């Protein structure tokens, strides 16, 4: 009944979680960072079965009556979560070590949250999806409050937590209504039954509540309020994880429920997501224009990006007979690329904030003159987020627009135009950071000589890899496109 080969990646990560917890017991206080090494080794190990699974030609491996599935989509997303975890671990090592808190638990929580994402990628019923989602969220609440003595961090955690559980309740309430109308918990079952109940108000309400629940996870406007506060208060590596891993998990959920479970009812989620997409882009970008703190700026930018990522959904939902594959592919591409560049941005922000001792953009003035390496990378990631070719971000926007225009009608063209204008607005605030870094004079008190500590090797490795990825993907986007294409096959069902 169980396909252990197929489950191997998840098992290995689960084992790693335990190993990290165990290792923490035996490691002396000064060498707690070794648990990160354990985590990294475990994650690397998990890639092996994924590779063999991908290389094998057995196609879809379904378990538990199709509730748990290993297909290309699951594999792609698992790899994505693992790599995200990998990068976040690298980013965390020096950062967490400095704080002298419980390192072992930190890695444990992080890996557990990752495992949730991996489970979600394989889930094909509501229960598994919900459990996966909670596994992602629960540890994340604690991670957000990691710096226990810092009241900002506490506050971040509490806000995140309260909104998180509230939204989870709404989500699961919606799920209960969906179950009640369709009598099925599996996506296939819901899809099959949805045709007959598509007009039922309760079913519609259920779908909407599910979307609201996920809207929180992906921090779409108007469910975004927690994000800036939490992002700002949480330790930066955690913020990076939240803005990428946690958001990606949310998108996995949205992808699965909209395209697979509610694939038969696009006229319900289409308009809803249109509104969410438009609002997220406009509000996220406009507010980001006014931010003075780099993390807050990235928080609002990530809200806006959530809007961009929702655009293909909305388009696919609004046009009769539109190809869901295309939209699915576009969103997956966007999520993957967004992950690369946003992680990169946060990694560099950690380095730059250390160098300048501040997260305020104006304190970064003249960074380019005394820390050119960090500045170049920062520029690279920010302009990639802005979608300037030939950095990876352009392809994300490109496929997003492509999906919108694929089967266009008036609504989708308006959405495309909103997205286009927002792409321009977004440039402004990214460019403002770049301007401060390169074009403004450094403040008096900055010590232009490099500090002895400098950038930690692990952090350097993290953003180095991401920088290469941003450029390579930008020039050869086919790398990402292939994954996205493979992943999109499930939408056609």
């Amino acid at each position, binding site marked *: 009944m169980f396909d252990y080969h197929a489950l191997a990646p998840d098992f290995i990560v689960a084992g790693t979680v335990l190993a990290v917890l165990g290792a923490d017991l035996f490691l002396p206080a000064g060498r707690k960072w070794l648990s990160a090494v354990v985590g990294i080794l475990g994650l690397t190990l998990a890639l092996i079965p994924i590779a063999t699974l991908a290389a094998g030609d057995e196609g879809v491996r379904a378990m538990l009556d199709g509730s748990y599935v290993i297909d290309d989509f699951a594999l792609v997303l698992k790899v994505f979560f693992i790599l995200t975890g990998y990068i976040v671990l690298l980013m965390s090592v020096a950062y967490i070590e400095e704080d002298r808190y419980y390192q072992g638990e930190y890695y444990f929580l992080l890996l557990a949250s990752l495992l949730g994402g991996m489970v979600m990628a394989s889930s094909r019923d509501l229960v598994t999806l919900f459990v996966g989602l909670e596994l992602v969220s629960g540890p994340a609440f604690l991670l957000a409050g990691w710096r226990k003595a810092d009241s900002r961090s506490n506050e971040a955690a*509490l*806000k995140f937590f*309260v*909104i998180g559980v*509230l*939204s989870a309740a*709404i989500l699961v309430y919606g799920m209960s209504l969906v179950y009640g109308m369709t009598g099925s918990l599996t996506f296939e079952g819901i899809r099959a039954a949805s045709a007959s109940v598509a007009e039922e*108000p309760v079913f*519609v*309400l259920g779908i*909407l*509540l599910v*979307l*609201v629940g996920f*809207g*929180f996870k992906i921090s779409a406007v*108007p*469910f975004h*309020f*927690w994000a800036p*506060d939490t992002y700002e208060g949480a330790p930066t590596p955690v913020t990076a994880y939240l803005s990428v891993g946690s958001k990606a998990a949310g998108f996995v959920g949205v992808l699965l429920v909209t395209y697979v479970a509610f694939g038969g009812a696009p006229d*319900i989620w289409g*308009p*809803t997501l249109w*509104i969410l997409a438009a609002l997220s882009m406009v*509000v996220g*970008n*406009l*507010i*980001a*224009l*006014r931010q003075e703190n780099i993390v807050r700026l990235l928080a609002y930018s990530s809200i806006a990006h959530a809007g961009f990522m929702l655009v293909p959904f909305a388009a696919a939902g609004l046009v009769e007979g539109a190809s869901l594959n295309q939209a699915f592919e576009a969103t997956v591409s966007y999520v993957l690329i967004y992950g690369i560049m946003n992680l990169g941005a946060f990694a560099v922000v950690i380095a730059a904030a250390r160098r300048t001792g501040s997260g305020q953009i104006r304190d970064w003035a003249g960074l380019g003159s005394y820390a050119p390496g960090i500045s170049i990378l920062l520029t690279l990631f920010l302009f990639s987020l802005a979608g300037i070719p030939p950095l990876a971000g352009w392809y994300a926007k490109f496929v997003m627009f492509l999906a919108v225009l694929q089967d266009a009608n008036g609504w989708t063209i308006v959405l495309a135009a909103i997205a286009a204008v927002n792409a321009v*607005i977004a440039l*402004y605030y990214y460019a403002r950071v770049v301007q401060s870094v390169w074009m403004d004079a450094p403040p008096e008190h900055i010590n232009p000589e490099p500090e002895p500590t400098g950038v930690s090797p692990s952090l350097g490795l993290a953003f180095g890899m991401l920088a290469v990825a941003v450029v390579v993907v930008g020039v050869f986007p086919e790398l990402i496109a292939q994954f996205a294409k493979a992943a999109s096959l499930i939408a056609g069902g």
Partner: protein
Amino acid sequence: MVTAALLGPAVLAAIDGAVERSDGGVLAAGAWLIVLVPFVAALAITLFGKRLPRHGAELAVAAVGFVALYGTALLLTTLFGDGIVHEGAVKIGEFGGFEIEWAWVVDGLSIMMFFVVGVVSTACFVYAVGYLEGDVRPTAFFASFTLFAGAMLMLVSAANLIQLLIGWELVGVSSYLLIGHYWEQKENSSAGMKAFLVNKIADIGLMIGIIIAGITVGSFTISKIMEKVVESDAALDDVAVIIAVLLFIGAMGKSAQFPFHVWLPDAMAGPTPVSALMHAATMVTAGVYLVARMFPLFEEMAHEALDVALVIGAITLVIAGLLAIVQDDIKRVLAYSTLSQLGYMVAALGAGAYTAGLFHLFTHAFFKSLLFLGAGSVIHAVHSNNMSDMGGLRKDMPRTFWTFMIGSAALAGLPIFSGFFSKDEILAAFREGDHTIVFLLGVATAFITALYMTRAISLTFFGRYKGDGHPHESPSIMVYPMIGLAGAAATAGFINIPGLTDWFYKLVTTRLVPAELLGEHATSFDWTALGLGVLAGVAGIALGYRLYYPDAATQQERDRLYIPGLWPVLENKYYIDDLYMNGIVNPIKGPVARFINWTNSYIIDFVVNVVGFATRSLGWVVYSGIDQRGIDLAINEAGAATGFAGSKLRYIQTGKVQQYAAALFGGAIVLVIGFWISVT
């Protein structure tokens, strides 16, 4: 490297080689040298002139000397051998179906111009060597001067209208350089600009005329256009009048016809050799040349345009003549005289007298350049342009005086001098064409011409010297060119004595087009015209003699012929310059330009900036107004409105987490409601 890069494609794109349209012997085939040599010389002077002992003057003189010799050879061959009619071309580019060529035409008309330009230029150049002795920048001068001659030669050798336009504008730009030669003073550079811009305005006409002609005929080659004229091509016939009028507008600019005449007097700001050349052989004759070159088109298809030319020429000849009477600056007297004489030429062409107009161009070139050189010689001696600073120079500068006298006689049309023959032919042509009014104006202007020349001579050479210092005769290098030109001015008329020589007629009608299309040619004197013309001249001299000789009190000179009402108008140049400056130039340069710039800054750019700032401000509004605060308001309002749980709701206003939760939930509700509305 770069040059190679830019040339490479072209070289490979293949030079098609020279095309010869008709044969004219070795001499004609090499005629492109006439154009090329001055340009090469100008370039060489620019680059190396400073290192040469005479600052490049030697190259300049050599170049125009070569042109003069070549022109003379061509002239003699044509007059005494077979008529040369030759066209050669090199293709230099293509635009759509239009092929662009460097092409040179060697026929009677262009040979006549080669000769005139060559000979007069040589005289002026040699003279300039002396005149410019000790100048601030002789190299720049000789480079521009050579370019000037080269441009004119390019213009007259042009076998197609594009090349003609190129030569035309190059003449304009080199005149700009020469007029503004002493650019340290703003008046001089302004005068250069004025010349250039007035010409440029007229060139709009020329340009559009060329465009229409080119598109209608499908080629810019003049001989092809002429073929269509000969064939009476219907398409060309439809637009011929427009083309002709537009071309004539261009001609009016270069030949300084009313109302484009304003630049010419100001052009006196340049060194005198420039004025001499500009007013005699080059530049101002270009317009006349253009009309002559395109004459069959005017004559056969656009007679209306000829009428326009006649009227314009007649107006110019009178108004300019009158202006010459009141000038104190000797060069300005001559400048207005040039205008007036150009009026004769244009009016002659307008009356259909092709040969007469060109003949006057020919003779005028010699005597007017002579007069200018003479004036220059005087100016050189007294260091002033004003006749009120001169007087009595007859004794100090005898050779200048005598040559000046010969030139004046030719200009006044005294018998046997060259102007006599050419002016008579024009007057005869007016009578021939029954243009009585124009004829009378022509006679009247002959009178005026004689009057102002007498005045100029009296004030300059007779009476008492009123300037400073002791004037001396100019050096030989300046005087010999004057003597040479005096010889030409005295005798040039003989080559076209009606019924006797007619060489000139033969020359200028040696063209690809049939001679019938080139106007009538009188074979005998029109004694009435001749008599009236001479009489008017003599009367003018007599009156001038009476009024101005011998000079006594210059300060009252103005009053001797004072005509109330007319004089202020003349002294203000009919207020035309004021009209142009205050009516057109200043408004455009001032308010209009500032307005446009204002709209750019305060309207277009303002909109752009407002959009930018508004977007940013919107960010602020959304952020602090709605995102961070609006929820408070919403809950307040909701609480107040419903009264529901007022006390409970009030204290959560500051609890941010709950606001967020409220927003989350509120958003969900809005979604649900909105969706409900849209579904039902």
